[in-house]
């Protein structure tokens, strides 16, 4: 066992040996080593987060045919550090009428809810973090704390825009949680486990996006809504709500919301990769070294993040009634239909040859999606006719 094949265990055993040498209790040494490991991972994540600020600004600039930050350092790479310094030396104002404790707690909980998501991310075959057997639901549980932090921020600011933004954001987050929960069950059905690492291992010959392309798509849509990004960025509502739930926040407290949002998007890119694109797997390359596996995972997460940004900077914002109608009248029924179809095909073809199983799964997905689109199309057509039918006599009257 050497460092390149299992760095985490080698480092942990080495450190525990040192701490034991200092006369420390074995349990205490273990706890301390876990603490240091988690601290290291989170510091790396925060460094990545700083880099994400640059990525986000550079990518949006490209989408909008601009250059983006390009003055500080090569390709503007120093820009995010300047941003951080700016955030730190700005005054932290607290509105006089705000509920001070809740107001200050909200950005902390918001950041925390994103960071703990990484507790269940398997970075490499031997670096599992937490091998929790309820990993899939843990994502939703962490999201629940994030939802809570938003409603806390919106309420505590004692600002009408913050309140409206917070309420809308929470309504959207909880609504889209249903399709997300349902789509989380699809990898669970295929792999027979809620453990993230088992889900990755089960995508051995066929990644789940091949088996369930529609599931991957619905999960992405629900994730975008959960992140509160365009076309679902109602809380921000730049033009009408002036930034929504975080309107009263300044300095580093605002920075926590902002950094949390970027890291959240990147993390969900990672979860998309883990659940449907094989996580750290890439044609056996992940077996070479855990470090390579981490790079593969980060690359796939970046791709997912890029898709989320692509959607954000391409789509226009939709209204809250349209968004909730889209979720409850289209996405939720479709998600449940897809879940049941997947379960049915999975049970009927359990003993069929692999190629036939895969092909049937793809066809079942495409068929479900096609039926759903046809129903939606005819429903919107009749809706339009209903509205226009009402209009016509009015015009004739005038």
């Amino acid at each position: 066992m050497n460092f390149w094949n299992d760095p985490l265990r080698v480092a942990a055993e080495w450190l525990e040996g040192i701490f034991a040498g200092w006369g420390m209790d074995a349990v205490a040494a273990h706890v301390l080593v876990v603490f240091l490991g988690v601290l290291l991972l989170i510091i790396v994540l925060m460094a990545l987060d700083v880099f994400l600020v640059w990525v986000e600004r550079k990518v949006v600039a490209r989408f909008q045919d601009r250059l983006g930050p390009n003055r500080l350092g090569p390709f503007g790479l120093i820009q995010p550090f300047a941003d951080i310094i700016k955030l730190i030396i700005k005054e932290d104002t607290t509105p006089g009428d705000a509920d001070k404790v809740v107001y200050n707690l909200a950005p902390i909980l918001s950041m925390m809810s994103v960071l703990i998501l990484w507790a269940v991310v398997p970075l490499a075959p031997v670096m599992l973090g937490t091998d929790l057997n309820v990993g899939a639901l843990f994502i939703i549980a962490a999201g629940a704390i994030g939802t809570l932090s938003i409603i806390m921020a919106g309420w505590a600011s004692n600002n009408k825009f913050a309140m409206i933004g917070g309420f809308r954001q929470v309504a959207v987050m909880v609504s889209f949680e249903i399709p997300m929960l349902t789509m989380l069950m699809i990898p669970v059905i295929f792999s027979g486990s809620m453990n993230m690492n088992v889900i990755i291992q089960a995508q051995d010959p066929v990644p789940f996006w091949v088996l369930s392309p529609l599931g991957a798509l619905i999960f992405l849509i629900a994730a975008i809504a959960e992140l509160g990004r365009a076309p679902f960025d109602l809380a921000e509502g730049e033009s009408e709500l002036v930034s929504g739930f975080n309107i009263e926040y300044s300095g580093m407290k605002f920075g926590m919301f902002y950094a949390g949002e970027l890291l959240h998007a990147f993390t969900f890119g990672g979860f998309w990769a883990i659940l449907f694109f094989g996580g750290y797997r890439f044609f056996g390359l992940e077996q070479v070294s855990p470090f390579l596996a981490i790079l593969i995972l980060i690359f796939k997460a970046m791709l997912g993040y890029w898709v989320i940004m692509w959607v954000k900077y391409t789509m226009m914002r939709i209204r809250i009634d349209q968004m909730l109608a889209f979720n409850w009248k289209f996405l939720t029924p479709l998600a449940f239909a897809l879940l049941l179809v997947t379960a049915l095909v999975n049970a009927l073809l359990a003993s069929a040859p692999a190629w036939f199983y895969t092909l049937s799964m793809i066809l079942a997905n495409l068929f479900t999606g096609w039926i759903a689109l046809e129903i939606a199309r005819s429903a919107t057509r009749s809706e339009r006719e209903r509205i226009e039918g009402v209009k016509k006599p009015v015009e004739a009257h005038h």
Partner: protein
Amino acid sequence: MTAQQIIFLFVALFTLISAVMVVTTRNLVHAALWLVSTLFGVAVVYALLNANFIAVVQVVVYIGAIAILFIFAVMLTRRDMRDTGPQMNKNWWAGALVAALTFAGLVSLLQEWSGFSKTASDFPSGFDAMGLLGEALVSPDAYVLPFEVASVLLLAALVGAVYVAFNPRSGDSQK
């Protein structure tokens, strides 16, 4: 005392203090937030008992859904979110007496039980708690009927909620 017991006592204290704050704080939104921390404490207790699924479900359902529902409900029922009336009525001593008696009864009952003082043991390796739960939920000789009845119960809850919310509005629409 083991580390697990110390953690349990700490969490239990946290949960109890939060629970007391729920009923004593005068701000209704604060009460809802204290309720969240109480429910989180209960989730930690489940985790200490190795009940991973229940612990996560506690956070998903109680903090993610019920707490949000409470906060929404608080905001749409009251114009003024501050409770100004007296917090006790003249029968407070009867409530305290019933609570004390219930607590004493529970303690005396639980002391007879041999499992009361045991700490949760780790599952043997390969023990598939989630799989067993899934199997039991749909197995005809286990819990399939409660499983389906749960769905009917949820349906009743939904229909009831919609009915209650719908009725005053139908009066409005006739105007």
